[in-house]
């Protein structure tokens, strides 16, 4: 089977810090994972795309989070950290895409931890929060 790159996934995005949650796109290509917040988030929050650094990527699946948003992938890079969120049924295709792109996938099945803590995300919310650009 021929894989066409990049593979894109429509995801929810949690900005970090700031804890604004909106839509975005996760693009996976050989050696590259990039998460791009949607236009609305970008204009309201100033959130920018983040390219993942390193060859390891982590997928968190908390048991106690509802299945429609319980798969999260922290994307850490120069632009900061963004968490891409999707639903349980996308976990398999996400894992395959990462592996085919040459990344080492580490899966964590947790109870509630999603790869970030809300408190940490909320830190700096005042500085990075909603309507930052409008001040």
């Amino acid at each position: 089977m021929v894989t066409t790159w990049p593979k894109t996934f429509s995801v929810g995005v949690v900005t970090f810090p700031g804890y604004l949650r909106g839509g975005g796109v996760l693009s996976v290509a050989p050696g590259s994972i990039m998460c791009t917040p949607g236009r609305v988030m970008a204009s309201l929050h100033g959130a920018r795309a983040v390219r993942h650094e390193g060859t390891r990527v982590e997928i968190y699946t908390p048991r106690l989070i509802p299945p429609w948003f319980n798969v999260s992938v922290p994307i850490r890079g120069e632009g900061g950290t963004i968490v891409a969120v999707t639903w349980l049924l996308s976990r398999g295709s996400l894992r395959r895409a990462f592996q085919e792109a040459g990344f080492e996938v580490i899966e964590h099945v947790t109870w509630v931890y999603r790869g970030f803590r809300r408190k940490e995300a909320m830190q700096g919310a005042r500085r990075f929060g909603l309507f930052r650009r409008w001040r």
Partner: protein
Amino acid sequence: MSSPRSRGALTSCAIAARSVGVAVEDEDRLFGSLGIELTPVIVSVIGDQPSPPATLACRAGNTVHRTAPDPIGLSSCRHPTSIWDGVGSLVDCVSKGDLEGGADTVATVGLRTTSTVIAGSATGRSLSLASRATGISLGGCISGSAFGGPDVTGSLCYYATPSGESGVTAPGGLGVGGPAGANLLVGPSVSNAENLSDFEEWFLYGGASAGEAQYGAGVQGQIGKNGCGRTIWSATAGWAPSLQLGVGGEAGVSYTRTYT
């Protein structure tokens, strides 16, 4: 436990509504019993027959957005008698320079058209049948909310009611919500309303959503009393895409208009 007869003697609004409805159906009995004999006849009718869907007494206490045709048959602004009369009504608004009336007419005609289209569709007919079978109002809603301390919410819902009446309701409300953001809610809705005019009241509403962006789900409910004092509730649950800061919740007061 009270007997059907003693219950019928109570002057609750709902019972009166059913009774008048039955009496209207049976004209001979109604005219023969006006005045002194009215109450006994009503009691016997309640005891003999199952409750039919009727709402006349309750409606008297409510404002139902029905049309008031012009006595000489001309279209009048804000009062389109039918979908086709909407153009004439709009022309009347324009000729009077009533822009607000024009907007009201357009909204009324649009929502009535929507209601008619849905009611005539297979989905609308199925909802109507299911509503009559279950005795609860069934439908669906599209709601939008924006919150950041203060909360503004608006919905468009379609309901088929057990009385056989169906139409669009448009609740709008103000309240408090947080922390900050906006969301949509699209999903099926249920209510204990017996007819559409039961919605035409002030309600308390509350809602919450959980999820990230398009991977979100939410619920919204409202509760209030109809013109007869009966408690009316409705609940909607479904897909809730959002753009927000943290987990969202809202509560407040809303008023609903109905369009049949």
